[in-house]
């Protein structure tokens, strides 16, 4: 059971583990859970503060952008994630 969109979690996983082209489902779920535990409370706060619609797609994309940040604090990572999200405004393919 994924917290974020499975494909977005896979993108983030592949970006962080470039040598594992086909992670097992268990590896992917574990990574998704780690992202959720570390970032989601902050994602909720900052999405609300920025007035971003709370959809699974938006939440997943911000988690992806935040996962690519080199910062260490969740607050900083999500801040940059939101900034990138607002810059590119990704379109949900299945609204």
């Amino acid at each position, binding site marked *: 059971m994924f917290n974020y969109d499975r494909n977005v979690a896979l993108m983030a996983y592949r970006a962080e583990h470039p040598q594992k082209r086909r992670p097992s489902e268990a590896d992917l779920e574990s990574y998704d859970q780690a992202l959720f535990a570390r970032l989601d409370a902050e994602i909720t706060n900052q999405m609300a503060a920025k007035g971003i619609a709370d959809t699974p797609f938006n939440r997943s994309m911000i988690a992806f952008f935040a996962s690519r940040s080199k910062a260490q604090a969740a607050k*900083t990572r999500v801040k*940059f994630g939101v900034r990138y999200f607002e810059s590119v405004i990704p379109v949900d393919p299945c609204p």
Partner: protein
Amino acid sequence: MTLHISWRCCAFRAAVLAVVGVIVAPTFCMGQWWVLEGRRYFDPLPAGVREAQVNALALAMADRVSFLRDDKDPRQVWDIDLGVEMPVLGWESDGSESGTVANGGWGAGGWIFISFHMMEDFIDDSSPIINTDYRFGAMVKVQLDLGNQSWLGFRGVVGHESTHLGDEFSIRAQEAFPDTFERINVTWEYVDLAALWKKVAGTWIWSARGGLTATVPFGKSYYSTDAASVTDSPIGPVTPSKNSVDPYAGATLEKEGLERIGLPEDWSGYVSGEARFRSVFDYHKTDPESSEDRQISINVIGGLKSVEGGVMGRVSPFVRFYHGVNPHGQFRDQKCFTLLGVGLRLAL
């Protein structure tokens, strides 16, 4: 009878291995292996004087060291560190995220490292490189996720250090001080064991560590004195060192997001310090069995870096202050050595 005991012994070992295997094998099957991927189990201490990292202290003043021809004191120097830790192989019980173990799990891995540490003088003719220390070896790092954005890390290092005086420095020193110039071959193998606690709270990142560095074999001298070594002194016999363990502690505090004080929002500021109970080498002890004196040696750096690699990339301007036993090669017989300067470093 002997055969009977061996059978029992073998059967017991087989039983133990089977039990351990049954317990451990599923654990390792469930975890994740990584190969040649970066992990932040136990980052080098930014203020670590001999950590494998890149620092260029380009504008610095330091106390004069022995055998420089000009008496000016203090004097302009460079202090350059060039080193890297290379991850090789590791395993994690519950995966990782942004290089740290996750989901309450733990991970362990092996690294190899290599580093060079050089000091250059700018007062004597030809601006001689005074000394270069070379270190290389392997390390094992372990990290445990304690939850609530905090981690516990352990590091075990096995390494070798070789130190070398600069050739221009040596040639000129031999000319100027023929009766006192000595060349001590500071070269040793060591183990370094340390523990680290790290915590992220809001936009603050705290870490504290403690450890010790010991010669291998335990009790071995930091420098060679045997006939085959290149240790050479016109002063008299060189006595081996007796101390063999240096304890140390370090801490780093980092603040991400400095826009409130007018800096770009992707900049962070950090302060890092190391305190090491260093031995003061004494090459001509009156009592060869006596232990060396010690001095607490402090290294503190503070700097700015871009956490997103934006304006500054990974380059971080920093200020450094060092006071204590000279950390360079054979000059570790010099107490109260002070170094102050600014430079650039590559930040993680």
